[in-house]
């Protein structure tokens, strides 16, 4: 390199040039001071470009930025091989994003879908899964009329009491009663399902990564285990379930329920309806929340605009003032 032949002082002078590539820099005496006989002027410009501090800083920033971008994109540092003890399938397949009818920030639930989803829950899921936090009254005005819900609640016997004799007794359900659980307690649920506890579905959409997308993908994602994957007796393979082996078997098959509104009961239709119902069960406040969100956005943006205007209004005289100095007239002579 040429730079080796130059004294450190000359290099420093070249590096401290105001701007590499500018014509003034080339013609300035400092640039001439580091030029020797074997060097063309363009080489000097290149030299000063290489040695400039700006070049050093920008190349360092570019390198650090590239490494950071790569790490962000691929999750590991470039050119460093990594070995993991776990396999990616242990995390479960990521569910695709589905176009839910309530996905947008202004969209309510599709209540006809909630009604169908309740039917699927009642006829299929409720055989194993409880829905502890939903009472009969919660369905009123959401998916059923009050008379329908009363009739449904009365079909279930609840224990009440004690009566005058101190005895517990059974009575038909009321609107205020909660959904009846399929098993008396957790131990009974485990015993009935070979040790696997069917989780309560009240908050299941909030409780799982991926939410509604995950549950839909899980319900419709049962496939045969691929070669090399061993599933124990009584377990089932589902790529969306972390680990792949799930205690619940595929339950939704085409035509399993008969919808009262004539919707074809395909597997994906039932899964979509029951997931919409479970999403409502997790977020009963959903529709009202989104309506309040619209109001809040409108009001707060109006208030922001007003406060910005008031600030400018109040500051106008201060920003526009001019200070004039009127020197006192010299009257001594």
């Amino acid at each position, binding site marked *: 390199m040429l730079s080796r032949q130059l004294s450190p002082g000359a290099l420093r002078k070249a590096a401290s040039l105001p701007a590499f590539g500018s014509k003034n820099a080339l013609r300035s005496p400092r640039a001439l001071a580091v030029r020797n006989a074997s060097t063309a002027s363009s080489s000097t410009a290149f030299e000063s470009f290489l040695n400039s501090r700006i070049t050093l800083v920008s190349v360092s920033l570019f390198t650090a930025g590239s490494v950071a971008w790569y790490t962000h994109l691929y999750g590991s540092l470039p050119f460093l091989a990594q070995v993991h003890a776990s396999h990616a399938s242990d995390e479960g397949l990521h569910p695709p994003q589905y176009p839910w009818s309530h996905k947008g920030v202004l969209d309510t639930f599709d209540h006809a879908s909630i009604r169908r989803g309740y039917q699927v829950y009642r006829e299929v899921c409720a055989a194993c899964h409880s829905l502890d936090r939903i009472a009969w009254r919660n369905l009123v005005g959401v998916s059923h*009329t009050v008379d*329908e819900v009363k009739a449904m609640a009365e079909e279930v016997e609840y224990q009440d009491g004690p009566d005058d004799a101190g005895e517990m007794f059974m009575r038909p359900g009321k609107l205020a009663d909660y959904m009846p659980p399929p098993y008396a307690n957790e131990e009974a649920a485990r015993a009935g399902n070979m040790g696997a506890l069917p989780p309560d579905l009240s908050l299941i959409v909030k409780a799982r990564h991926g939410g509604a997308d995950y549950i839909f993908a899980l319900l419709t994602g049962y496939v045969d285990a691929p070669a090399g994957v061993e599933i124990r007796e009584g377990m089932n393979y589902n790529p969306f379930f972390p680990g792949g082996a799930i205690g619940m078997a595929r339950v939704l098959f085409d035509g399993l329920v008969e919808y009262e509104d004539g919707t074809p009961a395909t597997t994906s239709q039932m899964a979509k309806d029951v997931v919409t119902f479970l999403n409502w069960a997790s977020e009963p406040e959903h529709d009202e929340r989104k309506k309040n969100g619209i109001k809040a956005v409108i009001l707060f943006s109006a208030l922001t605009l007003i406060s910005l205007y008031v600030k400018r209004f109040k500051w106008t005289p201060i920003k526009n003032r001019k200070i004039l100095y009127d020197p006192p007239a010299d009257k001594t002579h």
Partner: protein
Amino acid sequence: MSLSTTLYNTFFRRNSIFVGSIFAGAFVFGIGFDSGVTAFYDRWNKGKQWKDIRHKYVEAAEEE
């Protein structure tokens, strides 16, 4: 009489009128804003909410 004078004499001259008009204005604005947002929300979500499908099931119950 200019507009500002009318405005002053109507709303700002007496504090009771001033405060009262603020309260009344807030009340009226609250109702109007609420019904406006609700109208937009219902039109945006036409056919999805319970009040849109309720009539199917209420009529069925009355026929029984």
